[in-house]
Structure formats: structure tokens, C-alpha cells
């Protein structure tokens, strides 16, 4: 997995609340058997009209935000399905950080498996960053995972919380399966105890 340490980039504002995974990557693009290539269909039904032409008003179609690496979004981002295609599509487009007041549980966890950092901040701070993001391509937001800070274009610094294990894995690009397999003897002994206690499982 790709490491995440620091990032400074253009942030796109998406103040809509409850942006769901069907919006992020509509179901017709879930038929792939690969992880890559979903960026072109990110937010497909908001980004393109019925004929496949860009909808100019949509934020990621505006010149300032075409290379955005950060999203500042409304409450409850990523609600809906478990599809990891949502973070795959965001990452493939080039977005590695999403900032919101809250995230849906499965989406939040899926981000960390893909070198992406979802950041939860209080409403007033998200409002300030939303305003900052609205200024366009010259307003760059910086994120430092080690220090757990987000810095606005005018230097205002906000501290965010993150689970230490998730932080460690993201900073070092660690693969969960490899880590868990180091504990395989614990799994073996759990299984043998459980097969005594609950043989019907």
C-alpha cells in the first residue's frame, strides 16, 4: 500500500451532506474485476450529462479543481454501500484526503486500506476549510499525518484525531494481511479452543 505522510494540494469544496457511495461511483461501474481505472467515472452522474459531456457547474469539472487532491465535504460522507470502488475511484482520480464532520463507518475503514486519509473535524473548522477551498486553485490546504494537522491556505492549523494503529499503517504503507499473519499462532489456538467450546460453528 502507498504510504501517506504529508500532502499539500488543491481542495475541492463539496458542501452537500450525505454524499453516498452511489454518487461517488454509480453501480454500473462496479462490474469491473480490477481495482484500477475508476477515476474517470468518479461522481459520474453528477459530473457528466446523459450524453457523456461534462457538466460545467460540477466542482471537479471547473478548471481550478480538475487536479484536486483533497475534498472538503458535507456531513456523513460515504454513506451507503460497502463498495471499496468508492475510495478506489477517488484515489484513481487523485484525491487522497477527504475532510468532513463525519464519515460512514465502512467507507472510513476502506480509505485506510488504500493509502487515503479521511479527516474528521468539528463543523466550524470544516466550514472554514470549505470557505478556503472555495477560493480556487491558489488556496492550497496542507495535511501532515505525523503531526495530525490540517493547515489552511492562510496558515490556520487544525488538529485531528486518528486511531494510532491506522496512523502507523498509513505512515508506513503497511499491509494488514501481512501484519495479521504474524499472529497466525494466536489464530490457530483460538480456532482449536473455539472448536471445543462451540463445535457447531
Amino acid at each position, binding site marked *: 500500500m502507498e504510504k501517506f505522510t504529508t500532502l499539500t494540494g488543491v481542495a475541492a469544496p463539496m*458542501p452537500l451532506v450525505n454524499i453516498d457511495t*452511489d454518487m461517488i461511483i454509480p453501480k454500473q461501474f462496479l462490474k*469491473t474485476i480490477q481495482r484500477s481505472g475508476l477515476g474517470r467515472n468518479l461522481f459520474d452522474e453528477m459530473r457528466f450529462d*446523459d450524453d457523456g459531456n461534462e457538466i460545467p457547474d460540477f466542482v471537479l469539472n471547473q478548471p481550478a479543481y480538475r487536479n484536486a487532491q483533497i475534498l472538503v465535504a458535507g456531513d456523513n460522507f460515504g454513506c451507503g454501500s460497502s*463498495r*471499496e470502488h468508492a475510495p478506489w475511484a477517488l484515489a484513481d482520480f487523485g484525491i487522497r484526503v477527504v475532510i468532513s464532520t463525519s464519515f460512514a463507518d465502512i467507507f472510513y*475503514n476502506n480509505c485506510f486500506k488504500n493509502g487515503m486519509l479521511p479527516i474528521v473535524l468539528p463543523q466550524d473548522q470544516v466550514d472554514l476549510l470549505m470557505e478556503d477551498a472555495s477560493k480556487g486553485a491558489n488556496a492550497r490546504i496542507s495535511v501532515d499525518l505525523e503531526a495530525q494537522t490540517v493547515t489552511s491556505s492562510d496558515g490556520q492549523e487544525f488538529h485531528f484525531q486518528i486511531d494510532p494503529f491506522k496512523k502507523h499503517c498509513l505512515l508506513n504503507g503497511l499491509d494488514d494481511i501481512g501484519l*495479521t499473519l504474524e499472529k*497466525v499462532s*494466536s489464530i490457530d489456538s483460538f480456532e482449536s479452543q473455539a472448536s471445543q467450546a462451540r463445535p457447531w460453528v
Partner: protein
Amino acid sequence: MPKTLYDKIWDAHVVHEDADGTCLLYIDRHLVHEVTSPQAFEGLRMAGRKVRAPEKTIAVPDHNVPTTPDRENGIENEESRIQVDALDRNAREFGVNYYPVNDVRQGIVHIVGPEQGWTLPGMTVVCGDSHTATHGAFGALAHGIGTSEVEHVLATQTLIQQKSKNMKVEITGSLPPGVTAKDITLSVIGATGTAGGTGYVIEYCGQAIEELSMEGRMTVCNMAIEGGARAGLIAPDQKTFDYVQGRPHAPKGAQWDAALAWWKTLKSDPDAHWDKVVTLKGEDIAPVVTWGTSPEDVLPITGEVPDPASFSGGKVEAARRALEYMGLKPGQKLTDIEVDTVFIGSCTNGRIEDLRAAAAILKGQKIKAGLRAMVVPGSGLVRAQAEEEGLAQIFIDAGFEWRLAGCSMCLAMNPDQLSPGERCAATSNRNFEGRQGRGGRTHLMSPAMAAAAAITGRLTDIREMMAQPA
């Protein structure tokens, strides 16, 4: 220390706990479908890994499969066919339990699991699908995971997890006539919002929950995810044990007795700690429908389309956008909204009891002329039972299409889709923009309410159709 049901199941499955509270949790059942698994199996293959516990892994194609009778000739859509074929190849190569498309036991993964007795009280159950919460109806800790986690479970039979908080949702008293499990679960989301359960595992309890059948309990838990919760749970009781007993993969003989003894301990202690409590009175719950594009946009059928200005914060713009998308105006009576299509099915409401409830309304009736209506049973066995009970004929006589099992129009990955602007009364779980097809407009409701809408061609208060007491 007193424990909740969630605490008890969690504690019984911790393989390892780090100093910071991160746990390795053992997974008893892993359900797999064709959409969220190909990349996971490919990951195993590339790393030279095996499925650690193929006997605890169950695969079934459901999202992409056509529901028309010609599907036995193969799947026309190339991408769908590739995905279903990939599951077939992966299931056989890795040796997991498998119900192929043309097996009579095939169906929606969350209906097949309980039906075959794979889902049992006290288990941990995961699937690369958010509606895995369904299995919580058995007192199993069940939740959706992403594809990376699917690969993790395939390789290790465990998940790296942080414990959620405990939330109790109590529904006191009994439900009035015409009010169903679907109305409970939508009303809870209406009360708490789609992020109200974020960070929690919900236990549903109270008289109205106890009075529900297992099918109804599955409907309630199914939509826990729509309230933002990691999982929904209901303590197992005699109804649970009766449902499970005799199913193909349920324990038998001495093992049944041992299992039952443990299952009977699976309830929250009376003085357990709850981080959040929500209480609704059963008698206050009405038949409800959704008007917007989020499951929290729910109102009693007697209501009117709300004014976006009546909301606050980001919800004002979300409601304005929703009304525009849905083609509705503030103040419009919900019962004046006309529908083009009726969809009865999904992991929320595709079980036999749901079909019985809809058929009871449709018996001897015809759907409104010009309306499109379909019933998609949740599994081949549900379909067979409905045919045996004469329900299929009631649907067909009323003008419904009688389909084969699958997810179908709930998420429109197969050919069953809405056209732009087409309005649907649906028994499924999500009314998101584009969910049932680009530009499609979804109103969520119970099977009986969907059946009523099929007859009148508009959203309808089911209570008006029920026999009046003499």
C-alpha cells in the same frame, strides 16, 4: 461487569488485543458475492495464499444476475457475465461453499445465509455488502466490509477491528394494524438520521420487536446500516431457535443442545451500560414512505412533501436538491404522488412473509393499467414456496411479473432498471439518486404499501384498503 449482547459476542471472538484496544476478531461466517470479491480472490492468488477456512465461506451470485427465465441460457451483458463467471471460477478453485446461478437455493446472499442455516446466534458474520446487518436478527454480530477486508478474512478468517459503542433502540408496545417491520426501521432512521448510528452497534428490543417474526426482524436489522450503525442486533429467543432448527447447516443432536444452552445466554444484562438510547412507542408508528433521496427522508403516508426551508444546516440544500430530483413540490400530499413502477423484493423485503403480505392485498385485484410491476423473490426457495402457497398466481393474475431470485432493481446492476424520471414504489432499502437507474425516483415502503400502490397507481395508505371491522 454487566454486558450487552454485543459485548458478549465480541468477547467470545477476540483472538488478540493490542495495548491500544485494536482487536483481531475471529469471523465465523464469511458470505461472498460476485461484485465485491474478484479483486480479493485475485489478491490471494497473487500472494500465493489460500482461503483459510473454506468451510466457513459461502459464495452466491446475486447482484448481477438477470431475473428473467432466459437466464439459464447465460448472461447477455458481458461485464456482468465476466463477474459471475469469476465468482464461479474462484469458488471452485478455492473450494468454498457455493450456490451457482441455476441452483434452486441461489438467491440474495442475506436471504440464503439464514435460509440454509449458515447464520446462527452468537456468530460473527461478515460480507462485502453493507446489508450484512440483516443477520443481526439472529443475535449474530454481522456487518459489511470492503474488498480489502474480504481478502483479509479469506486469508486469515479474522478482521482487525475497533469496538463500537452500544446503542439501544427500544420499540415499546404493539404495532397498530397495517404497520410492519419496514415501518419500524424507516421510522427509527427518520428519528435518528442516517448518521445517528455512526460509531454504534444497535440492539433493537422491546415488545414490538419481540412480536415480530424472524422475517420482520431481518427487515429491521437489514436497514441498521441506513441509520449509520456498524450492525443491528436482536437477542435470540424461541422464535429464533424454531426458525434455525432443522435448517441444512444448523447443528443437530447433542450439538444442537449445546448450542441452544449457549444461545439462551445471549441477551444483554439488565444493568448493562448503553452509550445511547432511543425509544419509540410502537403505537405511534404509522405506515411510512420516503419522499427524498436519503432513507432519513421519511414521513407517515398521511403527510405532505416538506418545505426544504423547514430544515436546518446542510439539510436545507440537500432537501432542495432532493425535491428537484424527485420532481416534487412542498405541500404536495404524499397520497397524490403517482407511480409508474412497483418493485417488490430485495434483501430487505424479499422473504416469504413479505410476499404473503403483498399477495394478501393483491388477491382478486388488478394493478393499475399501464403500470409496470414486478416481484423478485429473495431466493429460489422463497420463489418455490410462494408458488406452492398460490402466491405466485395471485401476483400473476394481478398483473405482476413473477421473476427469478436476485438483487434486481434494488440496485439495478442487472437489466431491471428505472428510466430517467420513472417513479417507483419499492420495498428495497435505498432511495439514493440513481440507485434504481439513472434519473429514477424511488419511494421506499413496506410490501403491503407497495402492493396497494400497484392497485391505485399512487402512494396509498394501506389502512384504507384493509377490511374495516363490522
